[in-house]
């Protein structure tokens, strides 16, 4: 900042014909200061950029951690593509705001204050006139800011929508191709694309006003100085050197003024992004971690459902909204007055027609969702009192959708216990009757599975997810239709292996959902669900004797099998 002052000095010196040596000294001073300034500036800019990146890093980490705590109902509403857009694009916008934004916010006022004070000292009237356009500009900018913000939000939302659509199309590409519906997808994309384009144009219209406006303002200042100042110089009221210096100070303001225009759009973008990120922050996890610990406890595995009611939490029509405070529930309860107990080490089968609530029921056990009324207990204690980590460490869960990660088979099976050794992995694979097939693969357990387990057959995927669940040797095992794609013989082998453990100390409490009578008939207890209620309960024999819903359900199947025998 001292450079312009020195410049003024030098120019005045030239004007007044000072000796060369004096001017030379000033010049040398300028060079020296410039060099120092260079280093300092580089360093501070570097620091600030890094701070910006560090904040970005932190923000992304924290947001991800927060996302992991949110419950399934959130993910059912919120497309993955949109979340990705927020974590990547929106955070970048915030970082730009923080990095370059901070630099300019620090510099700009300083420049203004310094330059203005010096100029005022030289000639107040000239200063006022020269700086007159600035307040006008500020007012204009303020008005445009709101528009800018709105349009920026639109653009970012549009980007997220595009992201989601691409994500969905790519995920469902096999269906699209099989049904030759590429044109349909292209059409859907085209609609989003056009909208996005329009929003970008609207945004750019406003954004494009800023650079010329800023340049114009500083140019006008210069014009004023030239004309008004020049007149004054002619009249002898101002020295030429002062005039030149004045121009120099105005120049000081030129660059920050232009940067300010650009800064404003970054600022708006950053704010809009922050809003979108904030929406995620505001979402509270619906499943609150229990106070207790329990991680060291050995539990027996007795499970109790006590007058449990459940309906899904819903916010609006599947659209993402910011406040998660009002957790309205759907009108129709999915589960009503579920009441039964499973003694430790016993097997309970849960059957029922499609949509009767079986999967919902078992999802309540590891607290993927919380009950609306009533309670679920393990060993007599409400599961909400345990920590989530402890609770889930007791349950080996095989979900209906055999989701696998795109890593090695080894890693997928050992997902719950990464430190486990190869023998443990093999044991689990053996229990799930998939070990021989894995060994048949060229790379065995080192084989990398394609995304979502794509190059495996349905039955193989299921058995792998089963080994994953069995690896941790948990006291409770939940099988949600876990063997539907597996042939009957293999299914019997697997269930037999689990059954064999029954008499040992490793007896597990097993909850199995299946549609096959072969999987269900040997259970200690069969719970029959119908439209969310427990319709019947008992052993296979007692239920058959009753001739009710259960009999109806399995009659057909028994009949088929019998017909096949003929």
């Amino acid at each position: 900042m001292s450079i312009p002052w020195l410049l003024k000095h030098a120019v005045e010196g030239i004007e007044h014909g000072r000796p060369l040596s004096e001017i030379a000294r000033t010049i040398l001073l300028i060079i020296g200061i410039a060099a120092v300034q260079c280093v300092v500036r580089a360093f501070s800019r570097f620091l600030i950029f890094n701070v910006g990146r560090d904040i970005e890093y932190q923000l992304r980490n924290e947001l991800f951690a927060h996302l992991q705590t949110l419950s399934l109902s959130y993910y059912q509403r919120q497309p993955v593509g949109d979340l990705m857009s927020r974590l990547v694009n929106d955070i970048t916008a915030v970082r730009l705001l923080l990095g370059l934004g901070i630099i300019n916010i620090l510099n700009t006022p300083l420049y203004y204050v310094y330059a203005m004070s010096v100029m005022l000292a030289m000639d107040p009237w000239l200063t006022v006139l020269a700086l007159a356009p600035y307040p006008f500009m500020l007012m204009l900018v303020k008005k445009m800011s709101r528009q800018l913000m709105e349009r920026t939000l639109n653009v970012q939302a549009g980007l997220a929508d595009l992201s989601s659509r691409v994500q969905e199309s790519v995920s469902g590409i096999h269906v699209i191709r099989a049904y030759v519906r590429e044109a349909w997808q292209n059409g859907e994309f085209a609609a989003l694309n056009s909208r996005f384009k329009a929003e970008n144009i609207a945004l750019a219209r406003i954004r494009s006003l800023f650079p010329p406006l800023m340049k114009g303002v500083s140019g006008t200042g210069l014009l004023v100085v030239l004309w008004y100042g020049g007149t004054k110089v002619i009249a002898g009221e101002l020295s030429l050197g002062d005039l030149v210096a004045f121009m120099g100070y105005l120049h000081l303001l030129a660059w920050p003024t232009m940067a300010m225009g650009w800064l404003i759009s970054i600022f708006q973008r950053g704010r809009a992004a922050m809003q979108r990120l904030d929406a995620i922050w505001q979402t509270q996890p619906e499943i609150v971690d229990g106070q207790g610990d329990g991680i060291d406890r050995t539990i027996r595995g007795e499970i109790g459902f006590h007058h449990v009611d459940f309906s899904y939490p819903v916010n609006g029509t599947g659209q993402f909204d910011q406040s998660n405070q009002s957790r309205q529930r759907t009108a129709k309860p999915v589960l009503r007055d579920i009441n039964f107990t499973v003694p430790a080490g016993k097997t309970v089968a849960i059957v029922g027609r499609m949509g009767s609530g079986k999967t919902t029921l078992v999802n309540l056990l590891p607290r993927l969702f919380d009950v609306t009324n009533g309670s679920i207990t393990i060993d007599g204690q409400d599961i909400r009192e345990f920590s989530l980590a402890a609770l889930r460490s007791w349950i080996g869960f095989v979900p209906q959708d055999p989701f696998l990660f795109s890593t090695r088979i080894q890693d997928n099976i050992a997902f719950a216990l990464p430190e486990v050794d190869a023998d443990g992995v093999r044991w689990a694979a053996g229990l799930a009757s998939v070990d021989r097939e894995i060994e048949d693969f060229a790379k065995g357990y080192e084989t990398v599975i394609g995304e979502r387990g794509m190059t495996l057959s349905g039955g193989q995927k299921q058995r792998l997810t089963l080994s994953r669940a069995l690896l941790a040797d948990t006291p409770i095992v939940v099988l949600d239709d876990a063997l539907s794609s597996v042939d009957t013989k293999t299914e019997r082998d697997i269930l037999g292996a689990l059954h064999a453990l029954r008499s040992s100390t490793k007896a597990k409490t097993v909850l199995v959902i299946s549609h096959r009578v072969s999987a269900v008939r040997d259970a200690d207890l069969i719970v029959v669900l119908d439209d969310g209620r427990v319709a019947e309960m008992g052993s296979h024999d007692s239920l058959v004797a009753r001739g009710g819903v259960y009999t109806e359900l399995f009659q057909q199947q028994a009949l088929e099998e019998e017909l096949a025998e003929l």
Partner: protein
Amino acid sequence: MIHGHQEEALTKTYDVVLLRRLWRYIRPYRAHFILALVCLPLTSACILAQPYLLKLGIDGYIGEGDAEGLTRIGLFFAVALLGEFLFFYIQFQATMLVAQHSLADLRRDLFAHLQELPSSFFERNPVGRLVTRLTTDVDAINEAFSAGTLTIFMDILTLSGIVVIMLSIDFHLALVTLALLPPLLIALNFFRVRTRVTYRAIRERLARINAFLQETLSGIMVVQLFAQEPKLFAEFEQRNGDYRAANHLSNIYEASLFSIVEAISAISIALMLWYGAGQVGQGLVALGTLVAFIEYMQKFFVPIREFATKYTTMQSAMTAIERVFQLLDTPVTITSPEQPHRPQQVTGRIVFEHVWFAYKEEDWVLRDVSFSVAPGENIAIVGATGAGKTTISKVLNRFHDIQRGRILVDGVDIRQWHVKVLRSRIGVVLQDVFLFVGDVATNISLGRTDLSQADLARAARHVNAERFIQQLPDGYGERLHERGSNLSAGQRQLLSFARALAYDPAILILDEATSSVDPETEVLIQDALTKLMRDRTTLVIAHRFSTIQNADRILVMHKGKLREVGTHQELIEQRGIYWRLYQLQYVHLQDADMQDAHKIGVSDIRRREPALEKA
């Protein structure tokens, strides 16, 4: 621990080649583009005029005390200012419009191309990476345009203009002033070269973050069930950290460049003043010239300062362009031949001739498979998991091309068929039911406008899906969440059935579709299928013998080979693999409990299910 797929090495492409390809997208909008190009030199001229007018003002008028002349100069200056504003604005608007239109076209082409790419491509490339390509990467190009990058050309014009004007006003003074220009150029070039490499690394690491997010968030249920949040967080943190590290280097470059430019700017002016001082002292140079030179130097460094930011934006845009075109260049391997076979009628005769197929190299999944299916025949394909059953449907549909042998539909090799026509005659019900975000009706019709609501309802009724659909709050208009998560598995199955039925294919492939539905629903489906299978060639891939034993013929696959063919009876008599499989499945039928079932006849089922239409 999640490896993801490694980014393919990018071959170095010259900027010019890429820009030429980009030009093809810009060309339709060249009117605007030319307008912008025209405005650029005009803007430049207005910018260059201002300091010169200043010089004139100071030397010619202020120095002479000519107030009137000064006013005239002031007016000219005002005009130049206005001109700069106007031309810049017009140019910016025009550029922006060109950019938006051409990028929208680029995005459209990318998406369309993506849909044509072979299955093997999708197996290699995680969804997250592809999403990045179409969104973040194209947006980077967008950013380059809207940040006014085109003005780089104007800047070059202006800069050259400044140098020329300065040299013509006072040659020696100009030389001294521009003495530091060479080192400046060297610094700029150094920056340019280095950031190119770092930017590529940055983009790659960003894509890795995207891929990770995509997979982890999709599988969040599994993560939560196994309480593996900490582990996945650790992995995310690492990828995040890698990305940050990649940026550190570019930060150094950017910060250094900016500061060097500032320093050179100040020193150049200082040098000029030092030399100029002497000249003024000797009366060789007017004061106004000095002032003009200071002005010119200021104007010179403005674009240079902006250069760093503009350049980095340009660079990321260039890298993005590279990747985008790399995607566009990915070959579509499954194509229709020059003269494709497009029959009006398809009877549905299938022949497999010595088919060999492997997904990877020589890892044969199908070995010398040969069989034929007559039109309207119902075939069941059985075998242990991994025996190659699903693969048969994939090669029939030409999702993959076979390595050896031929597959014929209606006597014509499927590679001779028009791919889309072939697929439009083959209906598939996959094991993994994929439902789209949208309403139930759209999921059945998949956006086809030639199917009326009545058509959809009929298809739904056939598979007895109508009942549950009507029970939904919005019926056919009920919106489904991502992947149809608000329906039960059984309901999703039925919907996919309705979808296949509405399609009305000549050949129907059912891939283990009926196995995860409760018995009661299965009966309903079986019934609908029986009707559907009439007059249609059907291949059923299932484990359950109840669905198999009604087939006209059964194909027994074992380790990629077709081992036995025949009716259920014939195969039982053969006492081969089928017989053995059958034995193992039904050992438990010896159980006395099954005697209960004898009491109820088949007619009872039909009586209890009025929804079943008469066969």
